[in-house]
C-alpha cells in the first residue's frame, strides 16, 4: 500500500474514535446526532478503503441515513414536548452527567479494557481455518458469483433468515408500545416546501431504479437485498418526512402482510427445500440461483417497508378504526 494510502487510512482510523468521542460529549443532542451521522459517513469511507463496498453502502444508507433520521426525529419530538410542559429542561443538563469521582472510577476499567483489547488484536495468530479459500472454492462451484451474497443467502442463509426475523420483531416491538402518531418533526417550512416535493419526485424514480439495480446486480457484484432494501427504505423515510406517504402507511392488513412477507417466504423456501432435498435451506440442485433471487426480491421489499415502518412507529390503521 502506498504511503499516501497509509496516511489516509491513519487519518480515517484516528478520526473514528475522535468523532465518537465528540458526538457523545457534544453540548446538545442535535449536535450529537449530527456528529453521529458524520461518524457514519467516515465509517462508510473507511469501509470503502477496507475493500468492503457492500458494507459501505449499507452503512451510508442504514447506519448514517436511517438511524440518523430516527435519532433526529426522536430528539425533535422530545424537545418539542419540553417546550410545552417545561418541567425539567432536557438539554443541556447532562453535559456533566456524573461527578468526577464516578468518571474516574469508569475511566480506570475502560482504560484496562482498551489496553487489553489492543494487546489482544495485535497478537492474533495465523488463522487455523482458511475461510477465504473455503468460500472461494464453494463460489467457484456455485451459481452465485458474488461471495458476500453467496455467504448471506447460501452458506450462512440461516443467519440471514433469523436476521429478517429480527427486523420483523423490531416492528412488532415498536408497535407493541402503542405510541401515538407523531407528526413529522420537520418544520412546516420544510414539509410544505414545493422545492422539496419536486426534489423527491425527481429522486424517487432514480432511487427505485438504483434499488432494483442493486438487487439484480447483487448476485455477481457488490449489492443485494440489504443494500437495495436500505436504499428503498431511505426513500420511504424521505417520503414520510415530506408527507408523500402517510405515517400509518395505509391499510393494516396489507402493511402487516408486507412486513411479514420476506420472513415468510424465506421460511417457506426453507421448509419446501427440506421436503425436496431433506435439508433446511438446502436449495435443490439447479434451483440455487432462482431461489436466491426470489428470496432476495421479497427480502428487499420487506426490508424497505420495515425500515419505513420503524421510522413512522405507528401501527397501520385497522379497518373501521380511525387514527
Amino acid at each position, binding site marked *: *500500500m502506498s504511503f499516501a494510502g497509509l496516511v489516509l487510512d*491513519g487519518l480515517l482510523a*484516528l478520526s473514528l474514535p475522535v468523532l465518537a468521542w465528540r*458526538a457523545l460529549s457534544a453540548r446538545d443532542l442535535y449536535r450529537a446526532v449530527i456528529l453521529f451521522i458524520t461518524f457514519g459517513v467516515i465509517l462508510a469511507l473507511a469501509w470503502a478503503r477496507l475493500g468492503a463496498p457492500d458494507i459501505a453502502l449499507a452503512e451510508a444508507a442504514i447506519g448514517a441515513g436511517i438511524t440518523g433520521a430516527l435519532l433526529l426525529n426522536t430528539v425533535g419530538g422530545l424537545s418539542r414536548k419540553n417546550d410545552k410542559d417545561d418541567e425539567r429542561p432536557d438539554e443541556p443538563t447532562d453535559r456533566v452527567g456524573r461527578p468526577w469521582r464516578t468518571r474516574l472510577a469508569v475511566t480506570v476499567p475502560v482504560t484496562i479494557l482498551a489496553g487489553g483489547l489492543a494487546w489482544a488484536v495485535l497478537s492474533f495468530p495465523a488463522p487455523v481455518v482458511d475461510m477465504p479459500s473455503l468460500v472461494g472454492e464453494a463460489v467457484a462451484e456455485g451459481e452465485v458469483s458474488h461471495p458476500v451474497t453467496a*455467504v448471506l443467502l447460501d452458506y450462512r442463509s440461516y443467519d440471514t433468515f433469523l436476521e429478517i426475523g429480527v427486523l420483523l420483531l423490531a416492528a412488532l416491538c415498536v408497535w407493541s408500545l402503542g405510541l401515538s402518531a407523531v407528526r413529522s418533526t420537520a418544520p412546516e417550512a420544510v414539509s410544505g416546501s414545493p422545492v422539496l416535493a419536486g426534489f423527491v419526485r425527481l429522486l424517487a424514480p432514480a432511487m427505485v431504479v438504483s434499488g432494483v439495480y442493486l438487487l439484480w446486480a447483487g448476485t455477481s457484484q457488490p449489492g443485494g437485498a440489504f443494500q437495495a432494501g436500505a436504499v428503498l427504505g431511505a426513500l420511504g423515510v424521505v417520503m414520510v418526512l415530506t408527507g408523500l406517504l402517510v405515517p400509518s402507511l395505509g391499510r393494516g392488513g396489507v402493511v402487516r402482510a408486507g412486513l411479514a412477507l420476506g420472513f415468510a417466504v424465506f421460511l417457506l423456501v426453507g421448509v419446501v427445500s427440506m421436503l425436496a432435498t431433506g435439508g433446511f435451506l438446502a436449495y435443490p440442485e439447479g434451483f440455487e440461483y432462482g431461489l436466491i433471487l426470489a428470496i432476495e426480491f421479497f427480502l428487499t421489499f420487506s426490508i424497505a417497508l420495515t425500515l419505513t415502518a420503524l421510522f413512522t412507529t405507528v401501527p397501520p390503521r385497522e379497518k373501521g378504526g380511525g387514527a
Partner: protein
Amino acid sequence: MSSVDMYLLSGVAVFAVCAYALVVHAHLIRKVIAINMMGSGVFVLLTAIARRGDETDPVPHAMVLTGIVVAVSATAFALAVVRKLHEATGHAYLPEEGEDAPPDGGGG
C-alpha cells in the same frame, strides 16, 4: 504499523470510548447513540480482520451486514421506548437510586 492494524486499533478505541460514555452519560438518547457506535466499533474490527490475508474474507462482511440491520432494529425500538418513557414521565432518564421506586414527576 499496517493499515489493517490501524483499523483494528480504531475499532477497539471506538468500542472503549463508547463504553465509557454509555456509563457516564445519563440521557437515554446519548446512551442509545453510544450503544449503536459501540457496535460500529466491533464492525470496524471485523472488517479489518477480513482484510488481513491476501484475499478479502467475505464472511466478516456478511456478519457486519447482518449486524448493521440488527443495530438499526435495536436502535429503532430503543428510541421508541425513550419516547414512551418521555410521554409517561416527562423526561428521558432512567431512575437513578432505588430500583423499585418509580421516578417522580410527570402525570400518572
